[in-house]
């Protein structure tokens, strides 16, 4: 009797202690849970901030301010020889033409300094635009036309950002008189923001308003073609050998250890390899997409090999046994049955590898793909840059207008990456088979 009472008391005491501790434990549980939620929210908000800030900075980059000029194609300046022949027309003083046009529009501007400021509101590309117009249509000489020319980058930034006009003049890129002229132009509806087609069609330039990503995009395209042409066959062949043929021995282990390590080697080390081996030893041309493609091939191979091996592994043994059972050789079994079934998985891995290669910058800096290249590359041997390197170059440029160009180029790059990754996901969904 006494004994049971004592036991009862004891257990009640334990229960009381448990109860007392329980609130604390539940509080700890809630805290832990909240920490987890906080971590996820933090991670997702980083993603949101990253994308939001880039889109916010970048969307004006797709627009460009244009100024309408009434250009009188003066025969004396456009056609110095007076023959009307293309050679004579291309010798014309077109920047003088732009100057004269602006002076005619603002006749009250007389001081030398002011005149220079006046010509500064129009892009230096305007002269080339006028020359191309005249060369395309020599009949323009002697006539007067309304021409929309791109504004200078500082004007562009000023118009887009609605810069604070109360800032002291010395701290502004756009001076008071320029501001006055721009207001006049705006009042005459001669100032307009338009879609910036030059951004998608031209190569790099020192002038932000003339710079475009087409050259870099073409360079990226050639680089990726080289990468794809090399890394896909080699990667798939390696995967087939390791998965289907390789005996378990030291050699195979060595290969596998190597592949796993290469997947984690910093990308810049591949750049050093490319510089030392492909450029200095083999003497391949610098800055060429060919070398870039070779370096990126070595870099993406591990990704493709690992994905392809997983794809081969997922093909069930029954398929192999059935193929062998009807008398096919091992090679026939692999090439005719296993490989086609594993191909969607391999392609998915390859696309993901290509997306990585498209976004890679550091190794390409090492092999000289950072040069300032205006021309659109015509093949994998021509010097070129790629999209991420172009972004890097623009991010380094001091002109303010390059900030929005950089962000806009990033948006284009991200769009490509999103398309490639969605393609990979789509492919996986469409062809994934559960056996």
């Amino acid at each position: 009797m006494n004994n049971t009472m004592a036991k009862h008391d004891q257990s009640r005491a334990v229960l009381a202690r448990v109860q007392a501790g329980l609130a604390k434990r539940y509080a700890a549980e809630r805290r832990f849970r909240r920490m987890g939620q906080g971590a996820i929210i933090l991670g997702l908000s980083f993603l949101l901030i990253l994308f939001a800030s880039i889109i916010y900075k970048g969307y004006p980059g797709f627009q460009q301010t244009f100024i309408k000029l009434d250009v009188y194609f003066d025969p004396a300046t456009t056609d110095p020889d007076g023959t009307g022949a293309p050679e004579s027309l291309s010798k014309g003083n077109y920047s003088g033409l732009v100057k004269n046009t602006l002076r005619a529009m603002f006749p009250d501007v007389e001081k030398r300094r002011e005149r220079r400021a006046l010509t500064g509101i129009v892009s230096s590309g305007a002269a080339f635009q006028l020359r191309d117009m005249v060369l395309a249509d020599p009949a323009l000489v002697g006539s007067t036309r309304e021409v929309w020319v791109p504004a200078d980058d500082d004007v562009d930034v000023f118009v887009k950002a609605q810069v604070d006009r109360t800032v002291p003049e010395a701290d502004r890129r756009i001076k008071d008189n320029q501001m006055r002229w721009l207001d006049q132009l705006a009042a005459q509806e001669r100032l307009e923001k338009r879609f910036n087609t030059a951004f998608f069609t031209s190569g790099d330039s020192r002038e932000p308003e003339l710079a475009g990503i087409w050259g870099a995009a073409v360079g990226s395209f050639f680089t990726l073609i080289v990468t794809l042409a090399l890394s896909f066959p080699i990667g798939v062949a390696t995967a087939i050998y390791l998965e289907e043929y390789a005996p378990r021995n030291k050699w195979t282990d060595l290969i596998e250890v190597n592949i796993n390590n290469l997947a984690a080697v910093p990308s810049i080390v591949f750049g050093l390899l490319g510089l030392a081996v492909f450029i200095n030893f083999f003497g391949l041309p610098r800055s060429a997409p060919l070398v870039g493609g070779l370096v990126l091939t070595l870099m993406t191979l591990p990704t493709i090999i690992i994905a392809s091996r997983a794809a081969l592994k997922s093909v069930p043994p029954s398929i192999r046994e059935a193929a062998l059972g009807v008398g096919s050789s091992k090679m026939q079994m692999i090439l005719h049955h296993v490989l086609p079934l594993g191909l969607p998985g391999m392609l998915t891995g390859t696309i993901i590898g290509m997306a990585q290669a498209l976004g890679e910058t550091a190794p390409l800096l090492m092999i000289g793909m950072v040069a300032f290249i205006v021309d659109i590359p015509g093949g994998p041997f021509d010097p070129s840059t790629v999209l991420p390197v172009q972004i890097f170059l623009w991010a380094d440029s001091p002109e303010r207008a390059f900030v929005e160009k950089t962000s806009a180029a990033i948006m284009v790059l991200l769009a490509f990456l999103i398309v490639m990754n969605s393609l990979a996901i789509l492919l996986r969904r469409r062809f994934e088979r559960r056996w």
Partner: protein
Amino acid sequence: MNFPTLVVALLVLSAAGYHLGVRRSLAVSRGNIRQLHSLPSYYGLYTAIWCALPALFLLGIWVFFQDSVVTQLVLAELPESLRNLPENRRNLIVNDIRNFVSGNIVSGEPDPAIRAAADHYRYLQFVAGAAIAVLSVGLAVGGLAVGWRSINPLLRARNRVEQIVKVSLIVCSTIAIFTTIGIVLSVLFESIRFFAAVPATEFLFGLDWSPQTAIRADQVGSSGAFGAVPLFAGTMLISLIAMLVAVPIGLMSAIYLAEYANRRLRSFAKPMLEILAGVPTVVYGFFAALVVAPFIRGIGESVGLNVASESALAAGLVMGIMIIPFVSSLSDDVINAVPQAMRDGAYAMGATRSETIRQVIIPAALPGIVGGILLAVSRAIGETMIVVMAAGLAANLTANPLQAVTTVTVQIVTLLTGDQEFDSPKTLAAFALGLVLFLVTLLLNVIALYVVRKYREQYE
């Protein structure tokens, strides 16, 4: 004939070889296809391989050596006075000749000797091109004939073809080994040359880094000090900041997603976090330099701190954001690999979820998590673009995250971009830094992979 057309010609020839082989096999079987050892297409492939493989092999070797052989021949023909110049002057002349050949602008007045040499070069190039065209096409035709003649019903064409395919598979799989060897050799050779000029102890333990070496002997202010300790310290500082951001956030979000979250949240949040891993690093660099660094600077100034515009904090923070998905997906894998029985056991003892996680799951998954973190550290150390764009160039030896520091990767990039002489210690230093980088990341990877593998075996 140039190289690409030659390759196309060989491929066309071997396609013809395939066709001829198939026809021949049908002919020798005298209409009874069952007499053949292999299917007709294998005889075709056999002929095609005979046709293309030796010729392509020769072509590859030829293209590889043509340039240097032609250069040697041209050099041998040069007048005595030019031939006996020192090495670097002679290289300049070779450059001039090559430029002349490709019709580029040549530096200075074209020497008649160089002009003659260029003509000779052009002639040799033409001869070499013609020779390889004749040789490789001849070899292809010869191979085709050999293959074609050897076709008879008893020829084990399938086995031969499969053997060749298998050998090529093996060759492909050794590329990984050759890549590693290539990396090691390329950084090692240049590093050895570097250490011949700068003692290894000075490099590893010196506290002063200013790689500007004098180009002329009388130049001032370019001492060329190669003490890499400030770089190592800067790298570690930025990596530490990155890990302080990435490990708590990555680990906690992995735990939450694995243990608490419902399916819907999991299927949304996991791919979203993984997007962070897919964003190119140059984008992070831009983000760090233009958004995060000014933001930190602004905050610092508002509380009266002096923050460098290229602070280590900004670069580290953004690098941490980049690494979150690595930590979280690797931890997610290992947490999911902990057997359910261990959780059930803990719940049965009355433990709450967080107690189970902290006292059962984390200890059980710890080796895997540590492995994942080591991989993340190696990624942080090797990360280049973020630090190139957001960290400084000046080698400060400081532990203050608000100051600018520089890293190993930043220095590699700055030393190797732009025009430089390739044999100055300045450029070679980049390879020594690359060697250190490669060795450190290799060590971390090997340890991490070992730990992870060991851990996996425990529960399988």
